[in-house]
Structures are given as structure tokens and as C-alpha cells.
């Protein structure tokens, strides 16, 4: 088998999470107006201040235009054709424990390999599962509460911890931020909320699993993670959706706040339905993710494996406000078939001696277009700031594209900035070397692709590293780093 055939075999794998769950759902009529915004808010029995905030965002959104600068193309989105709320019908007061959750839903998550049941204690991961617009289950809440960690769905947080939500909501991504974030601010339905108090090291990995099920809906979740002084938390996020011929919009907002000496690690394995091999269907993943290192010596680390979505528009960023704070971004983005990915990061250095590292690996196959777009900006106040960026692209096939658009803005002489990038295909000499060591062609290609992505994969927690490796369509030999 020639290396081209192997590549096409590797890159032609079917989407495995494309089934539809048949649960009775409650959906709102399509369209967006103040009535819908108010209805979402009423559905969630939200306090007046949050409704006001949503309406402010909605009114601001009306005056905004969709950003066009990204290197992606898609037909115009009709925002009045989308349903902004869909939820599985459940008992009136919502599930109190897993036993109350619709068994059909539990089976869905079972199928996806998400350990919702507490017997999955072995997995050691607390999960918040978000199904369409609502959170259906959050596990391990009691054991987390014992150490003071709050981990619940966003709607619960609004009711139970209104002060915290009010204090931090919109503090990193204001409702005026950008077109999609503003839309999210108006219509966000649910998401996860996590608060780690002073000095607490979260005893287990926290995780949210997002699932879009309903057709014609958009998913607009909002995640807020706050780590107080000296706290640390590692958070994982996974996403899947059924196969459909139409495109669905996913516009999420993630806000992270790290105070003095706090550490937040945020990992994503994004596997929304990417569309079929002719580019039909798939999720538009237009996401705003931003972390604020507000405190001294704080650290925010983003790791993402982007394999799904027909279009990805996503720039997890760090605002390095506190002195000596650290921002990290590790990314593997795969664009196959007709997928388009315009992704990267923004490191905004404001505090003294702030440091950031960017490692981005783009893999393009089929007709995929993969773009790294990253910004490093060093303010005058960021004395002694340091940045290192590396962006590599691997091209598999002759119809795909790989693009690198770094923006480096430096306003102080004491900063040291380095950016490097390379683009290449798998070298014939590399393949030849592996082959003469007795590896089959397939193994050789897997080895090289894995080696290419390894620096990012090894930043992922173990469970996700395994999933990510599988997602890259290649099995990892030996141990996962």
C-alpha cells in the first residue's frame, strides 16, 4: 500500500458519535427576539439582574456585524432560523440524583464513554453533562463540596451562588466582546460553573461533556471557572453531536479567572460532528475562550485537540495581568475533508516578567484548510516579558492548505519574543528510515503523525490523551506521555 493510500485510509475514518438520541424534548420556536431571551431567562427562573444583563447583550448584539476576517468561508447564517433553547423533558424540579435522569440519556453518555455513574469512581473524574441546552447530571458533587469546591451547572450556580456569579460573569469576556460572545451572553442556556476556594487543590479532574442532540438548535453554553489564591484545578471538556445534513451553530463562552498563585489547566477534546466527506453538515464552532491571570504568579494553561466541527473559529487566550504570571497554549488542530479551522491564541502581556508559551500543531488532510492565527502583544508595562511560539503544520495530501498568521506586537525593549513555524509533508526519507527498521508503511505514518502531535498530547490528562490519540486516527504504541 502506498503512503498516499494509507494517508487516505487514516483520514477517511467515519465519525463514531453520530447517532441521535430519541428523548422527548422541549424546544422553543425558532428565531431570536427579546421575548425569546426573556423566555430562556424565565425557564431558568433567573433573577432580574441576569435577565437585564442578557437583554443588554441582546440589544448590543443587534448593532454588531458578524466578523469576516477569519480565513473560513460559509454561507450566511440565518439567526432567525435557529432554535435557541432545547432541553430533554424531565421531571418538574429536575433530576435530584442520577436515578432520576432519563435512562435514555444515561445510555447516550454510556455510548459516548462518559463515566456518569458514580461507579466510575475509578476513573476519578467529576463530570457535568450538558445535553442540548441544559445540564443533565453532575457527578461527585458531595465529595467535592467537602473540600469546598463548587462544581455544578451554571443555572444552579445562579440560584445557589448568585454573588459569585454576579462578581465574575463577564469579567473576562464582557457582553460587548465580539459578535458570537455577545450572542451567547444574550441566549446562553447552561454550562458549568466551578469555584475553587483559597488554598484548595481540587482533588479530582473536573469535566464537562457537551452533547448537541436536537436538530436546528444552536448550543450556547457558558463556562466560568474561578480559582482563588493558591488554588489549582484541572478541567476537561469534550464535545460530540449527531450526524446531520444541516449545519448547527455552537457559540460558547469560557471564562477563567486565576487569582494570586492559582493554577488552572483547561483541556479540550473537541469532536463535534465535522460534516461528511463532501463537506455537508457539521457544526460551526464559534467559541470565545479567555483566561485572566489576575493574580501574581498565577498560571493558565490551555490544551486543545480540535478534530471536529466543519468550521472552527476559536482563540483561547490569556490576559497576563499579574506579575510573574504564566500563560500556555498547546494545540493540535486537524482539518480533514472540507473542514476549515481558524484557530490559535492571544497572549496579552501586561504584568512584569510574564511568560507565555505557544505550541500549535496543525494537520491538514483532504480539502481541509487549517489556519493558525495567533497574537502576542507585549504592553509597555510588561517589563522582562518572555514569549516562545512554535507553529508547525503537516500537510497530508495535495488539496489541503495550511496557513500561519502570527501577530507579534512588542512595546518594550526588555521583552524577548520568538516565533518559529514550519510547514512540510511527511518526508520520504523519514518514511524510508522507518520502513528499513521493519515498520509497515501504516505504522510509519502513525509514528510520524503521533510524533508530530506528541508535544501537545502529552500535556493532556491521561484519559483525554488516549481519546485524543484515537481521534487523530492513529493508535499510539507504548505508553502515553
Amino acid at each position, binding site marked *: 500500500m502506498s503512503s498516499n493510500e494509507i494517508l487516505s485510509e487514516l483520514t477517511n475514518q467515519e465519525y463514531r458519535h453520530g447517532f441521535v438520541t430519541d428523548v422527548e424534548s422541549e424546544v422553543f420556536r425558532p428565531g431570536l427576539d427579546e421575548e425569546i431571551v426573556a423566555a430562556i431567562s424565565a425557564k431558568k427562573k433567573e433573577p432580574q439582574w441576569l435577565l437585564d444583563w442578557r437583554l443588554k447583550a441582546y440589544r448590543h448584539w443587534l448593532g454588531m456585524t458578524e466578523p469576516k476576517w477569519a480565513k473560513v468561508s460559509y454561507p450566511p447564517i440565518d439567526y432567525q432560523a435557529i432554535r435557541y433553547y432545547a432541553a430533554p423533558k424531565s421531571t418538574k424540579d429536575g433530576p435530584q440524583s442520577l436515578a432520576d435522569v432519563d435512562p435514555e440519556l444515561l445510555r447516550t453518555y454510556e455510548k459516548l464513554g462518559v463515566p456518569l455513574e458514580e461507579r466510575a469512581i475509578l476513573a476519578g473524574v467529576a463530570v457535568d453533562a450538558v445535553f442540548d441546552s441544559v445540564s443533565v447530571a453532575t457527578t461527585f458533587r458531595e465529595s467535592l463540596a467537602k473540600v469546598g469546591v463548587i462544581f455544578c451547572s451554571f443555572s444552579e450556580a445562579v440560584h445557589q451562588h448568585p454573588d459569585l456569579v454576579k462578581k465574575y460573569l463577564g469579567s473576562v469576556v464582557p457582553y460587548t466582546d465580539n459578535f458570537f460572545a455577545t450572542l451567547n451572553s444574550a441566549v446562553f442556556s447552561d454550562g458549568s460553573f466551578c469555584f475553587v476556594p483559597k488554598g484548595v487543590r481540587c482533588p479530582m479532574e473536573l469535566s464537562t461533556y457537551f452533547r448537541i442532540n436536537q436538530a436546528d438548535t444552536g448550543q450556547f453554553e457558558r463556562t466560568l471557572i474561578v480559582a482563588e489564591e493558591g488554588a489549582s484545578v484541572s478541567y476537561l471538556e469534550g464535545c460530540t453531536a449527531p450526524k446531520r445534513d444541516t449545519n448547527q451553530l455552537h457559540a460558547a463562552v469560557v471564562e477563567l479567572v486565576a487569582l494570586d498563585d492559582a493554577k488552572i489547566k483547561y483541556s479540550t477534546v473537541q469532536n463535534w460532528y465535522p460534516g461528511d466527506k463532501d463537506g455537508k453538515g457539521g457544526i460551526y464552532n464559534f467559541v470565545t475562550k479567555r483566561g485572566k491571570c489576575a493574580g501574581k504568579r498565577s498560571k493558565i494553561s490551555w490544551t486543545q485537540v480540535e478534530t471536529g466541527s466543519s468550521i472552527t473559529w476559536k482563540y483561547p487566550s490569556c490576559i497576563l495581568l499579574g506579575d510573574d504570571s504564566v500563560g500556555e497554549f498547546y494545540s493540535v488542530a486537524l482539518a480533514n475533508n472540507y473542514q476549515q479551522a481558524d484557530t490559535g491564541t492571544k497572549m496579552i502581556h501586561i504584568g512584569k516578567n510574564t511568560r507565555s508559551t505557544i505550541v500549535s500543531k496543525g494537520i491538514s488532510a483532504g480539502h481541509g484548510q487549517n489556519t493558525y492565527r495567533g497574537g502576542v502583544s507585549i504592553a509597555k508595562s510588561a517589563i522582562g516579558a518572555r514569549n516562545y511560539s512554535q507553529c508547525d503544520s503537516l500537510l497530508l495530501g495535495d488539496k489541503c492548505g495550511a496557513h500561519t498568521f502570527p501577530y507579534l506586537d512588542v512595546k518594550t525593549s526588555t521583552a524577548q519574543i520568538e516565533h*518559529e513555524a514550519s510547514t512540510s509533508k511527511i518526508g520520504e526519507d523519514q518514511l524510508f528510515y522507518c520502513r528499513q527498521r521493519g515498520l509497515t508503511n501504516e505504522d510509519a505514518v502513525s509514528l510520524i503523525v503521533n510524533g508530530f502531535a506528541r508535544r501537545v498530547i502529552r500535556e493532556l490528562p491521561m484519559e483525554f490523551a488516549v481519546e485524543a490519540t484515537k481521534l487523530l486516527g492513529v493508535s499510539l504504541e507504548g505508553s502515553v506521555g
Partner: protein
Amino acid sequence: MSASAPATTLASALSEGTVSALERARAFGAREAATSPLFVQNLRRAGAEAFAKLGLPRPSDEEWRYTSVAALSRQLPAMADAGGAPAGRTASARSALASLGPIGVAGRSHHQLVFVNGRLDTELSRFDGLPAGVRFDALSRLFAAPPDLLERRLGLLRGHLTHPFVAMNAAFLLDGAFVHVPDGVVLAEPLLVVHVADGSAGPVASHPRVVLSLGENAQATVVEAYCGTGEAFVNPVTEIVLGAHAHLDHTTLQEESVEAYHVGTTEAHLGPGAQLFSHVLSVGGRLVRNELTVRLHGDGAGATLDGLFLARGEQHVDNHTLVDHARPHCGSQQYYKGILDGSARGAFDGKVIVRPAGAFTDAHQKNRNLLLSDTARIDAKPQLEIYNNDVKCTHGSATGRLDADALFYLRSRALSESQARSVLTLAFASEIVDRVPVAPLKAHLTDRVLGWLAGNASEAR
């Protein structure tokens, strides 16, 4: 100057600038029509029409992200008209030329064309003594009986239809240089084209055009130098067409006064196996933009793009490159270095495009910047856009200050702080300066860098 005009919004200022520039362009075209061949009149009209349509670039325009068009537009209404500027200030041109040092002194054996405020100065120019078939002349002298080739080459790259400043240049086309080296001819002597912007008697504008055409297997070295005094708006356009296996070494030296606004656009079209060596060196100017587009449209063509920019005080230098790999087996190397002091602002915005047909491309892009003060600022945007998988492309950009260890080492060898800084800064610049092929030019550049460093030191004191 419109600086005294009542404050208006930028958008209306831009459109006002466009309208007034357009009116002047029409008047200019009508005035010059009698002495210009038809194809030049057509080019002027096309340029004016395109400019009216394009307007000035908006601040939101991604390609103009790092250069304030507003500052330029303020200069426009008063300066757009080149025709009004008095010509023939030979005396001041002489002194400006002298500042170019060994390369510019009148009386040397160079073949040189000297333009003062956009008009040819016959007294300082020297065209004769070139091999048969070689054209090296001023456009204004050729307009009376234009060679066929000029008609085919002038405006060939069609930038005047898409680029606002090239359109403006076409609309105000008055004079410039035409160089043609026929097939197989190798020119040993460098050709020098000097543009003097003399704003000593009030602001001036010029829109010089340089057309360089090399036939198959031809070789030439061309130096374009920009110098002058006082307030000026200089908007040159250089068009380069290289035939198969032609070999051009092209240097742009920009050392105008710190009151000059310079927007230079160069576009090169390379045939199969052609090689372009470009050196873009900027020292002067209040606001400088160097735009360089290289289209590798023949198999196996290659381009080496070097750049060095020094800026201090309130200077602003924006370097823009685009290398278009449209055919297989092409190579490109870019190396741009910037040294910034004071409150200067610099930018490097480079792009490499590899089109689907650009297999076996070998493209590299390097940018290094040295910040000598805490108020200097640099923006770098090295970009790759790749549509073919069989390529080797890399880019890198780094920004920093002088290495503390190296400074300490030199200090321990009894060099003063400022000497040590000069040695290291000169070494940083030498990497580009040393690759300039014309020896007197190399020497002149080294002097320039040293003078610049001395100037910085005295400024700091």
C-alpha cells in the same frame, strides 16, 4: 496644509483627500496631455479612475494595520500634485547627492539618472557609454518617441488598478526611469537612479515611476536611492519584469529627511529560472512604507529579499513583503532586520503564498528586531499561506534587546558602554549590509549605521 483645517472625522477627511487628489489628477492629466503619448494618457486616466474608486486605505484595512493612513491623508491634499513643483534646483540636488557619499558624487563614472522633485535633472544625469541595445533613460525623454517595449512594459503589472498608491502614482505620472537590458547582455557597472526630494522651499510631492526590464539571460545591478531635505511626499512605483534566467540585483536605499513621507511600491514578475536579489534599506523618513511584491511565475525562479531598517525619534517604518509561489521548483529567502530607538515604530508584515501549482517550493522568511529603547515599538506579522503539500516552508521572528552577556564581555575588554552597544548593533546590521553587492554602497551603509549610532548617543546625552 489641512492640519489647520477644522477637525473632521477620519472617514470624511479620507474621502475629501480622495476627491481633492482626484480633481488635481484630472487637471494634471489635461495639462500634460500635449506632451505625452496616448498610452501614458490612458494610464493616467485609468489610475485616476481606479483611485477614485479605491480611495485611500481605511484604518481597518488589514494590509494597512501598522501604518496610519490618517497621517498620510493629511499630507495628500497639499502635496498630491507633482506638476506644480518647480524643477531644476541643481544646487540643492548636488548637496543632497553628496550626502549619498561615494555612490552619489557627481563626476564619478556611474551611469546615473537624477530626478529632482520628480523631474529629470539633465545636468547631473549620465546615460551614455552603455552596450548597444541597453536602454537607460528618463521616461520624459522617451515620451517624444517611445520605444515599443516601453509601451508594453509601463503599467504591465496592473497595480494601478488595485493599489491606491500605485493608482495615484499612475494618475500623476510625470517622469521616471526606464531600464532595458536585452537578451544575453551582462552589465558589469551598476545603474544608479537617484530621486531627490527637495522640500527646502516648502512641501513637495513626487510620483516617480521606474520600469526595469531584463531579457533572457541578461544581468544587471540597479540601485534606486532616495534622498532630500524638508517636507515631502514621495510615492514611487517600481515595476520589474525579468525574462528567463535573467539576474537582477536591485537595491532601494531610502534616506530622505525625517520630515518626508515615503510610500514605495515595488512589484517584480519573474520568468523561468530568473533570480532577483533585493535589498531594501531604510534610514530616513518620518513615515516610510516599503512594499515589495515578488511573483515567481516561472518554474525554478528564485528571490532573495533582504531588508534593514533603522528608525529613531518619531520615525515610522513599515515593511511589507509578498512572495507569490505560483510555479514549481521556486525558492525564496527573506531576511529583514530592524533596529529601533527612541519612540520609533517599526513593522514587518511578510507573506508567502504557495499556490496549488507551487510544488517543491523552498521558502524561508526570517525577521529579527532589535529594540534599543523602552519606548520603541515593533509589530511583526510573518505569514504563510500554503496550498500545496510538497513544500518546505519556514518562518521565524524574534525581537529582543542587546545581549547583556555580550555587553559585559565588551565592557570587560575596556570598551565604553556606548562603544560596546555600537559594536554589537553594527554587528547586527552587518549581516544585511555585507550582502549588498556594490562595494561603495556597502561602505556608505556602514558609515550610515555608524553615524546613526553616534546620532543616537548624542541624542541620549
